[in-house]
């Protein structure tokens, strides 16, 4: 009853939380997980003190179709200059209800 899906992870500024959630909704994603992280990168140190220097990490498990849709949408934003650090991992989903 398990299935193979893609675990996408997106690390970006806390201030773009709603923007990313809107993209999820747009492509029909109803399940996702997120938490706040710190980090360093091209846009400097994100130490988590203010909204503007906190990072959020989204984890979203998607099937092939959703994967294409959501990464296309996110990539549009990347081209506009938004800093999304995105990558995906191959996962085996064990919860049966999540394999439909």
């Amino acid at each position, binding site marked *: 009853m398990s299935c193979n899906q893609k675990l996408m992870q997106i690390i970006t500024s806390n201030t773009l939380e709603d*923007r990313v959630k809107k993209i999820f909704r747009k492509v029909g994603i109803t399940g996702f997980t997120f938490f706040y992280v710190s980090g360093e990168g091209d846009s400097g140190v994100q*130490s988590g003190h*203010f909204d*503007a220097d906190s990072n959020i990490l989204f984890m979203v498990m998607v099937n092939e179709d959703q994967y294409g849709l959501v990464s296309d949408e996110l990539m549009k934003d990347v081209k*506009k200059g938004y*800093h999304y650090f995105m990558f995906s991992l191959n996962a085996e989903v064990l919860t049966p209800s999540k394999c439909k």
Partner: protein
Amino acid sequence: MGLDAILIPAILFFALGVFAKVIKSDLKFPEGLSKGLSLYLLIAIGLKGGAELANAELGLAIKSIFWAAVLGFLLPIIGYMLLRFRDRIDRMNAAAITAHYGSVSAGTFLTAVAFLEASGISHETYPIIMMVVMETPAIIIGLLLAAMARRQIQLAENTGDAESPSVPWKSLLHEALTNGSVVLLLGAMVIGAVASPEAMQKVYPFSHEIFMGVLCLFLLDLGMEAARRMKSFKKVGGTLVAFGIVMPIIGGLIGIFVGATLLEFSVGGTLLVAILAASASYIAVPPAMRMGIPEANPSYYLTLALGVTFPFNVLIGIPLFYSIANWYIGL
């Protein structure tokens, strides 16, 4: 007005925070604490302002609001011209940086209030409402400058619109007006004004009495954060660091003129207007710039607002503008 004027606990705690990071102490605040402290401070100052403004003079209040808006629109334009002088800073970064200087830093403002209270100098409360007013215009100007810059870049590059961010004006204006700190400050002011004084009395031990202590804790944390940002000076470059000191001086002087001459405030009130003009937002504006000017580099504006202008104002600006205001009003 000697050294002991800045020997007030709030400023000393700020210095302690800077010191801790300079000696590389492992002192650390838990996540969320500084966000929580900053919520508290906005509510407390809002309640206080609201209660006092309930008895304010309408004419002067409107006048204050008007000049606050003018400052909020004017300062970013001055800043933009400075930054673009000889094309030193590219358009996008210039727009994003300058927006911070039109808005205000509540932390700096509260330190100035603590400075006045510790020195026993009274001040008008209109500057609190001016603080609320000034949160928004600068964001709008910043976005406008960026939109114009984007158009120019496109014309220059002759590229189509396909990949350029069509500015989502509606959502950005919404963001500017419903920004968390604006809502909190304004909301607390309204509550402070409409709630019955007897009921408010029960809230005072929380909002007034422990206020100074909480401010100390907040500034300790900001001191550490400012020092951490100072490490990025090299990346940011000399031009920007210089701007982070010159801009608040210009702002402060304009603020003194507005406070003393146009609004006819006392020395205390004038200092507060100067600080509104001199300080750079590091809470409300950066998120708006992240959203609205994604092309700009966040480490530039955060380093400037927090690592340069904030410590400059707390350690030098406040006593400096106070002395100038004192001298100017005494003329």
